[in-house]
């Protein structure tokens, strides 16, 4: 399964090569042209000669992770987050360090040796270390360089009836959906961007949009599902198994109403469930794309994911199939003259 490969690949922001290579291999023969830009975005076009306005689909390749920022004299590695990670979720997790994929663990002081005040508080970044089994700085330097990227060592696996667990679903699900959509034919030139550096400030996709100048952009994302205990219903951003989530507004964007209405119409006509993302927090590449040049009508559709930005997330494969189907039908229905 391609989603499994994408989920298990390492691609912390600005180090997306492994993901980019997998995507390249899988779309080369389905597109007219394929190129990368100075940022590292992977861009492709299908139906370049077709009449009609350019439509852009975009998903980001990068994931949140860690970076090695120091090596202690005892061979343990210091690290800091790349992107937004809940540091409370890091303790006692295995990780992969650097492009040579060196095994490491994030340990913590044994419970026996903790003071009671320590037990109540999350461990600060400065007290978390990665242990790769080296016992001196000199030895660690044989394997590690400052700036090496670190990702979680989490396997993809189907759970329950129709769910899956894994890492980096944000936003490998978006990448995977776009790869799938390239199998089909459309009435307009379809541009796709697999963007870099979304997790560190929405830095990649906007550059690609600047070059492409699309008439509209649809960003395929993963958003947080909080339909879990200890959270009240009114706090939920989205829920699992209720279909793809449409963003009306978040911190970076007010979605284009025509696009959102078009997707809702398609979903109603085809009995595909959808939900509206209830919170207005977070931001996506759509924010940057929508403000490119004189402005590009943009919208976001997301796959809900529990425990996003942590070592392991949970998605519904039913939602995933709905997401693929909904966007495909929407694009096929798209009135060329509308934008």
């Amino acid at each position, binding site marked *: 399964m391609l989603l499994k490969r994408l989920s298990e690949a390492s691609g912390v922001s600005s180090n997306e090569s492994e993901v980019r290579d997998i995507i390249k291999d899988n779309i080369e023969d389905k597109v007219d042209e394929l190129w990368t830009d100075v940022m590292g975005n992977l861009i492709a076009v299908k139906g370049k000669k077709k009449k009609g306005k350019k439509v852009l689909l975009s998903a980001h390749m990068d994931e949140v992770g860690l970076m090695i920022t120091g090596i202690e004299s005892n061979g343990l590695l210091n690290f800091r987050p790349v992107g937004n990670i809940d540091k409370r979720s890091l303790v006692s997790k*295995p990780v992969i360090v650097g492009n040579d994929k060196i*095994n490491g*663990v994030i340990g913590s002081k044994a419970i026996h*040796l903790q003071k009671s005040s320590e037990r109540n508080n999350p461990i600060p970044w400065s007290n978390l270390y990665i*242990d790769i*089994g080296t*016992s001196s700085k000199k030895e660690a330097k044989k394997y590690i360089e400052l700036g090496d990227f670190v990702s979680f060592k989490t396997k993809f696996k189907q759970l329950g009836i129709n769910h899956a667990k894994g890492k980096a679903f944000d936003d490998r699900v978006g990448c995977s959906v776009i790869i799938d959509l390239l199998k089909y034919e459309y009435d307009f030139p379809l541009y796709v961007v697999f963007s870099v550096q979304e997790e560190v400030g929405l830095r990649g996709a906007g550059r690609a949009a600047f070059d492409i100048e699309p008439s509209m952009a649809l960003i395929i994302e993963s958003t947080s599902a*909080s339909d879990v*205990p200890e959270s009240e219903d009114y706090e939920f951003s989205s829920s699992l198994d209720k279909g793809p989530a449409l963003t009306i507004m978040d911190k970076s964007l007010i979605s284009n109403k025509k696009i959102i209405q078009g997707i809702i119409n398609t979903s109603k006509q085809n009995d595909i469930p959808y939900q509206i993302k209830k919170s207005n927090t977070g931001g996506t590449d759509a924010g940057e794309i929508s403000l490119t040049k004189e402005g590009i009508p943009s919208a976001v559709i997301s796959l809900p994911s529990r425990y996003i930005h942590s070592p392991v997330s949970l998605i519904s494969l039913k939602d995933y199939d709905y997401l693929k189907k909904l966007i495909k039908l929407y694009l096929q229905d798209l009135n060329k003259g509308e934008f």
Partner: protein
Amino acid sequence: MENKKFLKTLSETNGISGYEKNLADIIEEVFEPYSDKITKDSLGNLTATKWADNKQDDTIDLMLAAHMDEIGLMVKSIDDKGFIRFTNIGGVDPRTLLAQEVIIHGKEDIIGIIGTKSPYLLNNKESSKSPKLNKLYIDTSLKKEKIEEIITIGDMITLKREFMNLKNEYVSGKALDDRAGVVMLYECFKELSYLKSKVNVHAVATVQEEVGVRGANTSTYNIDPDIGIAVDVCHGDMPGVENDLVVEMNKGPAIAFGPHVHQNIFKKMKSIAEDIGIPYQVEPWPHPAGTDTWAIQITKSGVASALVSIPLRYMHTSVETISMKDVRSGGKLLAQFIARIDSDFVEGLRCY
């Protein structure tokens, strides 16, 4: 079997305190070629015995003990949406559980993820605190009705973690406390097959250590040894811990010293290590609690006891880390010690 392969198998096998049978079966099979007799007692302790080489010498009994149980969790309730609440068995640090994958051992094994309220919904006060055990839950992604067919309250839950190789013969995984100790006993038995000894050696994989050193009680009673040596793990040097509370990693097994250790055994073991050049460290520990020696020492009329420990980082997490080199050196040291025991030494243990 190769030591690391044995440890990987043990680490990835599940056996919370009181539920060690799967482990006992594996250990029995692996010890069998090196043992003369293998027995299990009613609590579940597994004892592999190797008789003294010469029948006339068959008067000294020496017990080695390493516990095979692990800490874990237990199902406490299942809510209407199918989320499972749990309690701990043994000393689990709730801070290590967030985003942890687990296996619930119901009628069949079910994988789940430990979650808590999303960090994006926490207010400042909440996010500055670590989550308490009663705020955590397991998400199996199954509906309540389905879960209730498979899982009942009281079912055991283990942490899902693959054994990993690190650099320098370091390895990491769950329950190395104290399955690494079982592997040290195994290394000792392998080593003893090249040596002559005047001692009946009983290697016990004990049960229920993590909930109050219970298995060591009954197994010591049964064996009634002259000498009882527990093999367990001790804290390896970790950031943020005072130096005097830890030993160094990869610098040899730690020979413990304290009220739980007979001084003659301590001295002899140290001098043997010096003589034949086995690396070792001393672990001074002022209180006798914390390992099987707590029980071994005060069984029946008292047993001369000692403790050999494997330096281990991140104790009671799913990424416990040790060096295989320390396990190997410890096994050799135990075997060399056993080969040098005679009745004079045992007599001397009573003379103060």
